[in-house]
């Protein structure tokens, strides 16, 4: 009885202390979330519940990395099952004969072993394998947590085994089978060591109890200062993630509360807000900062980080979190408040390194949204005018000439002179399709880009598709502008394009550039544009299905296909280009990083227009090296003009033109049809 009272008092005092500490430590975090800007993420509640269950209990994303996923699954599931042990242990303090039963008892001991196995695997991963993604993470924190977990499960085994020795002499119970099979193994050991006496067993039980319950309470109080806060915030972060097409950057009307600001609509206000301080972040952004598990998966897949640039998505989140923690502590608040997030806490070089490829978000097991934060911080730099010379020049071109190249708008359709097919002039006549050609396809002097545009034009013409162009009414779609943080300019470009498209008569839009495809498909609708948008690979796939474009012979080549970020990851279009290639008789060999895990060419998010200072290896060159590893692959197939520019340069830089040709999907389709390039110049 005395033992139970002592342990109950110990538990009560410790619980009050630790839970009090937990509340004190959690309050500023929750207060920061409460005072942040509002965003609504309650749509599709049933889907959210289902997918959260799949991610949390099924470890859907975590298991993409096998070892990490399995060891985390062991530890996580062990913790869920060990809740039963807590119930049993606390219950036995009140009523010693309380038991969860032999089956659950057996289960608890099984999971004790699984958790221990998980801890061993985690230590093996950290100490032996030591993956690079852990660089920058607080490894001591991780090791401390692993130590705590070990103490808890060892404590369970200890107090359960000593409980059996105390059942009769101390608690006055008749011995019963409880399913804790580890006790049967440990009891003889304690007896052999001379710890079978009631006094020694009481001490042993108390030690085991303290290790188990005491460490759990300590763990709870420690969590708010640790990366393991994801224990609390992981599931909410998954539940409240952005749904729908990943490429949508502007929020939908349902996502936004009315801001009440003068004259600015709520939707615009949410988007236009540059992140100058934490007050400009949404509660979701704050949640992200404290949910980060420091696993480094984002860092591992980041093309900027791999290129040796200063950006690490993980460190960006951690630096923001540390700054917010400092701010909430008060002592240093005046200093921290005087610093701006963009430029001081996160350097401008770091922010401009991002290609907005979204690989970090795709890899994150707790669905942290890195890209919107980076764009928001970039917007703060843009508003302060802190833009490098070259991108500044390009932004000015976008503002004045409506294209990145600073060319006269009337020269936009100059490429049309190379092909014989007559595209309708949508400024004067109507057509079924509008071909939104985009800046790079229209203006870049890369020969590969010219080849691909010509091939697409020939295929569309040959298939008899009713296609028109906007000619000089077309301006840049603004996809890169928006992701460079210049929302005002994006709005200006989008408004002008939408005005032009409203005046023109057409049914649907096809784009040659996945970046334009993304902006028109995902961002323009938030501003009121409603027309179906297709990437040319989808159109070609349809034309082939209808028999309007029919391959006459198999190409018989071995090729690898590069998924453009803004077609694949951001818009989930993976199959159309592959299907086309297969129909043309192309043997597709996938690169290790393909589909949603594709590796960025390095041109997105405005990076195409920025300097490459400090870059160790261009992402495009790393990608070409990856393709060169594939046996027998002779063609590197792209479906984006920017990819064509970047990879053509990379192949040239690596000097492997004789081993690998960079070709567009359209070129291969054209070749398989046997149609000739319809060029005016040949005449």
């Amino acid at each position, binding site marked *: 009885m005395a033992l139970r009272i002592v342990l109950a008092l110990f538990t009560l005092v410790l619980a009050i202390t630790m839970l009090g500490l937990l509340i004190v430590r959690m309050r500023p975090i929750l207060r920061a979330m409460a005072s942040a800007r509002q965003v609504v993420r309650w749509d599709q509640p049933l889907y959210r519940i289902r997918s959260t269950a799949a991610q949390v209990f099924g470890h859907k994303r975590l298991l993409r990395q096998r070892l990490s996923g399995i060891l985390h699954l062991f530890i996580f599931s062990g913790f869920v099952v060990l809740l039963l042990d807590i119930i049993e242990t606390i219950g036995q303090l009140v009523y010693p004969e309380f038991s969860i039963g032999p089956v659950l008892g057996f289960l608890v001991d099984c999971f004790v072993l699984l958790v221990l196995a998980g801890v061993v695997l985690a230590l093996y991963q950290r100490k032996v394998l030591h993956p690079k993604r852990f660089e920058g993470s607080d490894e001591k924190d991780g090791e401390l947590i692993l130590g705590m977990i070990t103490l808890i499960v060892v404590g369970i085994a200890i107090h359960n085994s000593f409980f059996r020795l105390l059942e009769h002499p101390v608690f006055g119970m008749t011995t019963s089978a409880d399913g804790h099979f580890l006790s049967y193994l440990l009891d003889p050991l304690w007896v052999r060591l001379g710890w079978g006496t009631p006094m020694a067993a009481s001490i042993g039980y108390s030690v085991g109890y303290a290790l188990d319950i005491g460490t759990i309470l300590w763990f709870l109080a420690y969590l708010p200062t640790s990366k393991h806060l994801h224990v609390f915030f992981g599931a909410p972060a998954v539940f409240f993630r952005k749904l729908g097409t990943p490429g949508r950057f502007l929020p939908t009307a349902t996502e936004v509360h009315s801001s009440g600001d003068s004259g600015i609509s709520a939707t615009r206000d949410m988007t*236009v807000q540059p992140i100058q301080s934490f007050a400009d972040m949404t509660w979701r952004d704050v949640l992200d900062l404290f949910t980060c598990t420091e696993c480094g998966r984002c860092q591992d897949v980041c093309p900027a980080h791999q290129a040796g640039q200063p950006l690490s998505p993980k460190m960006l989140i951690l630096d923001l979190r540390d700054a917010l923690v400092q701010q909430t502590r008060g002592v240093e608040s005046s200093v921290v408040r005087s610093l701006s997030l963009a430029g001081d806490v996160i350097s401008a070089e770091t922010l401009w390194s991002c290609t907005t490829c979204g690989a970090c978000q795709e890899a994150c097991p707790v669905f942290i949204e890195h890209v919107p934060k980076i764009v928001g911080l970039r917007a703060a730099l*843009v*508003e*302060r*005018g*802190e*833009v490098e*010379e*070259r991108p*500044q*020049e390009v*932004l*000015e*071109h976008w*503002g*004045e*000439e409506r294209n990145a190249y*600073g060319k*006269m*708008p009337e*020269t936009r359709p*100059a490429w049309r*002179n*190379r092909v014989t097919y007559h595209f309708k002039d949508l400024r004067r006549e109507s057509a079924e399709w509008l071909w939104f050609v985009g800046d790079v396809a229209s203006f870049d*002097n*890369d*020969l590969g880009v*010219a*080849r691909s545009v*010509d091939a697409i034009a020939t295929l569309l013409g040959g298939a008899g598709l009713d296609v028109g162009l906007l000619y000089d009414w077309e301006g840049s779609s603004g996809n890169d502008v928006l992701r460079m943080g*210049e*929302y*005002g*300019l994006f*709005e*200006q470009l989008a408004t002008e394009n939408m005005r032009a498209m409203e005046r023109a008569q057409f049914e649907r839009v096809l784009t040659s550039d996945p970046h334009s495809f993304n902006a028109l498909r995902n961002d323009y609708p938030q501003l009121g544009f409603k027309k179906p948008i297709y990437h040319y690979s989808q159109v070609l796939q349809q034309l082939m299905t209808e028999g309007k474009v029919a391959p006459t012979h198999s190409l018989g080549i071995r090729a690898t296909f590069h998924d453009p970020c803004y077609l694949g990851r951001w818009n989930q279009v993976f199959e159309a280009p592959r299907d086309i290639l297969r129909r043309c008789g192309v043997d597709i060999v996938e690169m290790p990083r393909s589909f949603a895990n594709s590796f960025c060419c390095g041109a997105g998010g405005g990076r*195409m227009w*920025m*300097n*490459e200072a400090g*870059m160790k290896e*261009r992402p*495009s060159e790393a990608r070409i090296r990856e393709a060169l590893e594939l046996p027998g692959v002779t063609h590197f197939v792209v479906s984006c003009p920017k990819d064509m*520019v*970047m990879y*053509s*340069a*990379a192949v*040239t*830089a690596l000097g492997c033109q004789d081993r690998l040709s960079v070709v567009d999907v359209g070129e291969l389709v054209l070749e398989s049809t046997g149609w000739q*390039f319809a*060029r*005016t*110049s*040949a005449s």
Partner: protein
Amino acid sequence: MKVLVCVRSDLPAPMARVDNIQRLMEEWSAEWAGVLEPSCRSALQLAKDLSGPSGGFTALSYGRGECRAALEVARAYGAVDAVHLQSAEGSLRHDGNTIARALAAWVGERSFDVVVCGNSSGVGPVPALVAGHLGWPVVTRVDGFKKFLPQDDSFRAIELTQRLDAGWKRQVLARYPVVLSVQSGFIPPQYVSVRRRKEAVHGLASNVTECELPVWTDGHAPAVLQALTPPKPRTKRTAVPDAKSSAADRLKSLMGPAATKKVEKPKEDEGPRVVEGSAVELAEELLRFLRKKEFLSNS
């Protein structure tokens, strides 16, 4: 420190064609929405840097309606006051001395410490003439300023860096008041976002001060435009890629066929083209091209 910056508008790049430039110079048409002249952007940046984060500066422009664009950008850069000088007879056009006298007359009635002017060529006469009319020192080709000396009533000055020819730089000490001129690119200007620009446009309507200048009646008429001859079109060839382009672009430019590209607008029938065919056909095409370019005789 009270800083005044003089800014002026230019044609937007899409309109910078010979016919438009001719019309602009001959008619001084107010129907075009102008853009800030590039050297004036550097001047604005210098004025902003001189004023410091807490200080403000005054922006002044002259001409007709198109100079509003310059004042809008100036406001977006942080100018607290915007002044629009105009002359009833439109004499602020081609005569540098007349412009300088008008500016000096306006400045002389106020107490500015520094007047900053953009100067696209670096040797334009207006800043020096303004300084001459005011009796102030002038420092041209300003590249930056290093530090302020202790400001007291007896000695108020600024240490300036000048960028000279052939890479030389010079530090000079200039006592207030002083006229400074800066060339485009000497002071890297900050970007002005569309949002800031829009806010400036909203604020400009109520904050611009219109000043009508008197007609000069000292007996010497200003220079009057008689004729305008556009430059002869010529082909520029770039032997080396643009130093500001990315490494990938430079590499491509060096290794690819674009090393010597024509900058002039390609005619429709002479644009870049790709010819495909047999070896004989390609050889004939090559010969035809060489003859056309007069590398080979037609015989």
